[in-house]
């Protein structure tokens, strides 16, 4: 059982969605995640850099069919931090009513 813990790095919009996606797959391609969360390349790169600096994601570059692809995965500490953050969000959600609108 993970201890609920708020994580400011993960909580930011965009990074939370990236972690939500990566937590359910082995690896995801940069372009796929970018399209799923509907951000630009530069915003996506910025989020990934911050997650990578925190040690939450690992990037792998692979040349396939003459094209450079970047594959992203959550690291074990990324999984733990995301799980703990979601638990904290669930705990907070139980304490607070949803915002109107």
């Amino acid at each position, binding site marked *: 059982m993970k201890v609920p813990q708020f994580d400011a790095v993960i909580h930011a919009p965009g990074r939370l969605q990236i972690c939500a996606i990566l937590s359910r797959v082995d690896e995801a391609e940069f372009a796929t995640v970018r399209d799923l*969360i509907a951000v630009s390349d530069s915003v996506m790169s910025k989020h990934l850099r911050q997650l990578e600096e925190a040690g939450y994601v690992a990037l792998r570059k692979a040349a396939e069919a003459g094209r450079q692809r970047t594959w992203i995965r959550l690291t074990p500490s990324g999984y733990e931090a995301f799980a703990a953050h979601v638990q904290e*969000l669930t705990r907070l959600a139980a304490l607070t009513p949803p915002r109107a609108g």
Partner: protein
Amino acid sequence: MLRFPYRKVRFPVTHDPGPHEALAAVRDSRAALGARIRPVLVEEIALAVATGGVLAAFALPPPWGSLAMAPFAVAMSWLMVLARNRTGLMVNRAVCARARGIGLAFGLAIAGLVLVVILSSLLLDLRWPALACGLLAAVITFFGRRAWLRAIMDDLAGRPR
């Protein structure tokens, strides 16, 4: 001014989200992921044929069996890579108990068929079981893989089983 056609904001969370909003964004992201791994019928049929072909190739006498098996095995690998590149996702990790159960049952069924084929063709010198097992493996692969993907998609979308 630069315009990017794909920048339609699906999850308009631009400020510091509250817990309800953040949890909703997590759910929505996973649901969108589920839609992305939707199986393609042609790919599923081709993969089933390739899997069945690997086993059915044992029906041929040596060394033709091994030679016939190679293109089917290559086709299997190629189809897996094709699916990975199309979706941009690697989802080998079974995310829910249902998907894990389906994956385990599928693996055991194929392993059992491989054992039957090896015993019948190499030890008993019977050829017809390889054809029957190949056909069975193709059917199991087709329905097994679809059920496995469906289980993952349901789990990601938060649908009840």
